[in-house]
């Protein structure tokens, strides 16, 4: 399968680079000279246009008010959560708000897959990492490592997709970098994104806060992204209508935090290694025991079928738009209802509980009533899922 033959065809405006002159990316596009400038000014700047970026300085300089505005946004129930309504004051920052920074590199193959592409994935992935810290996103950076000969149209598709994902989240791309490596030294395109965000005062989500009796909530169907990617990977193609669940979880997490406040103890997006690896990590670092009900796990029939066929455990397959929330039992129903009231959490379910065993182990109750201990994914499931 080639990078361009996908089910999600790009239908936006044409690439602004004169592709008759430059149908592919050249080494010079990353050499810092006039071609580099053309790439930045014609392709990247228009896509990500914002005041911080358009200065084209060595780094982005952000207004402190932007951080204050994010910090001032309330996470408590009953108060306004609209950032624009909050008073941007330094008091919000001094009152216990903290900065959150996260970075992630994306080397997914194929670059374009049902339900998304490396561009949207790179934006969603980093936004979601911020969200799992309880942070509101303030800014993103983007670094592109492009292999010489990469199709300019494909680069434009990816950049357009990043723009759309960042714009939907209302987060500016404030600085970036472009490098071109010799043909054969890359794999088409690698993307690194870094996210900067603010954790408002009163929000404290960390594995250490998992308590016996806490409910383990899952925002929806699992293993969809991993199976969608696998269905189009060379050598493994199988027919399915599955699309990646890649999505920005920020709005859902805001709703969870608004409703649950301090009752929200842990948040995690179960990406590579799946729900199993995420829960095992939390259990291990919190020394908490967990009991999962395998029957409660939302696995769509198509995903189940493909997993059965390929011998994969859906608990080990990657997600890109799902969230695990470990919450105090007093608020679990309210939080579950809040999750279900959001499109990204419409199928949210209770899948298990923190037990008082404090042994750092995740036990799964099988459909026939037996028990097994869940282990994180070991080794590679398949090369480079994301």
């Amino acid at each position, binding site marked *: 399968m080639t990078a361009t033959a996908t089910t999600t065809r790009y239908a936006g405006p044409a690439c602004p680079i004169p592709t008759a002159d430059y149908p592919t990316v050249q080494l010079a596009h990353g050499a810092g000279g006039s071609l580099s400038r053309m790439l930045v000014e014609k392709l990247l700047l228009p896509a990500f246009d914002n005041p911080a970026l358009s200065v084209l300085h060595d780094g982005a300089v952000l207004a402190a008010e932007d951080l204050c505005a994010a910090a001032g946004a309330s996470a408590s129930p009953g108060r306004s959560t609209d950032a624009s309504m909050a008073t941007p004051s330094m008091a919000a920052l001094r009152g216990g708000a903290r900065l959150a920074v996260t970075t992630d590199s994306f080397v997914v193959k194929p670059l374009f897959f049902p339900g998304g592409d490396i561009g949207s994935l790179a934006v969603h992935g980093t936004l979601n990492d911020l969200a799992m810290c309880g942070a509101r996103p303030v800014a993103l950076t983007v670094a592109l490592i492009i292999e010489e000969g990469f199709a300019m149209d494909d680069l434009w598709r990816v950049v357009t997709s990043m723009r759309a994902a960042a714009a939907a989240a209302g987060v500016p791309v404030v600085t970036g970098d472009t490098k071109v490596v010799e043909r054969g030294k890359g794999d088409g395109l690698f993307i690194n994104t870094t996210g900067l965000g603010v954790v408002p005062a009163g929000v404290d989500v960390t594995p250490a806060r998992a308590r016996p009796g806490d409910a383990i909530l899952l925002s929806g169907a699992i293993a969809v992204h991993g199976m969608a990617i696998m269905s189009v990977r060379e*050598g*493994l193609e199988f027919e399915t209508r599955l699309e990646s669940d890649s999505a920005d979880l920020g709005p859902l997490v805001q709703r969870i935090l608004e409703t649950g406040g301090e009752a929200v103890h842990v948040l995690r997006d179960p990406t590579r290694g799946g729900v199993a690896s995420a829960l095992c990590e939390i259990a291990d670092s919190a020394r908490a025991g967990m009991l999962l009900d395998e029957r409660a796990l939302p696995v769509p029939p198509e995903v189940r079928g493909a997993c059965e066929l390929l011998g994969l*455990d859906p608990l080990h397959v990657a997600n890109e738009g799902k969230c695990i929330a470990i919450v105090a039992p007093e608020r679990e129903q309210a939080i579950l209802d809040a999750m279900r009231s959001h499109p990204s959490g419409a199928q949210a379910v209770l899948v298990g509980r923190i037990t008082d065993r404090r042994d750092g*182990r995740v036990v799964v109750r099988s*459909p*026939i009533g*037996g028990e*097994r*201990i869940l*282990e994180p994914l070991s080794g590679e499931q398949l090369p480079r899922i994301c």
Partner: protein
Amino acid sequence: MRYVDEYRGEAESRRYLDAIARTATRPWMLMEVCGGQTHTLVRSGIDRMLPETVTLVHGPGCPVCVTSVELIDQAIEIVRRPGVILASFGDMLRVPGSGDDLLSARSAGADVRIVYSPLDALALARKHPDRDVVFFAVGFETTAPANAMAVWQAARAGLRNFSILCAHVRVPPAMEAILSAPDNRVDAFLAAGHVCAVMGYREYEPLAERWRVPIVVTGFEPLDLLQGIHMAVRALEQGRWGVENQYARVVSRDGNRRAQTLMGDVFEVVDRAWRGIGEIPASGLRLREPYRVHDAQARFPVSHIRPRESADCRAGQVLRGVLRPTDCPAFDAACTPEHPLGAPMVSSEGACAAYYRYGKRS
């Protein structure tokens, strides 16, 4: 999901577990032959739910596990040659040979591709006429028809750049080897349902007769296994032997005749060395003379390879049901899925991997 959920019911499972407990008055040792069955047992927790009288030991039915070190070394040697693409099921990649595994060969630049079907390997050969595409044909009688089909199609299309490294093994001779071993403890077998879907179960009847052992052809869902165990225990308690078919919704006595014909046309029976077990007479398949042009061992010089097995790995005893994975000194110590000493720790059907993955560490 239809045809799956019906075989995973809690109430029905409970009923079978009670029936097994009522039936078994003495200790019995059952061997599930197939690694897929091992995984269902451990994954669904059946091994912990059975009465103490019934012990399950895990059989040699993991094709990846029993593929000899020599063949893995040959695969690595072949793929290191310029112009070769080696296509393999994913599980084979991390199985250690004498030194390296195929994954490290790939890291060092060899062209190793993961495929899910030999026909995908055939497609690679069509796509790359200038390359030598070698498919690592591993498996029991279950995968043999598809591999036979790939070779047959390659021969018909004149695809001379397609060959297979044939590691095929047959189940009945392995069961015979287990039964004839002096330290055998197995009282009854759960035979591998999918092998029998192809081969039927006629060839197990003389085995059951000769060794006076119950053999129950069994499926792969939790309820299949519970029912199979119940049937085997009932036969043992009643002093009966012979072949019974639990998996009747898939398996017939004669099996799939067309698949057998194709296999017979393409393959012939040979003696084969099983990893950890040793050579078992008439337990392997190789390509017949007319198809030898598609035999990787004939195309590439590999006969000089002298394999070495890890001294610490006791996979052979695990594969014969003599040793439990957790009783191996290397288990979860020198040997983990990240650093496997032997194949059963690697394969998704391997008993050691099943114990490790489903938390059987003591």
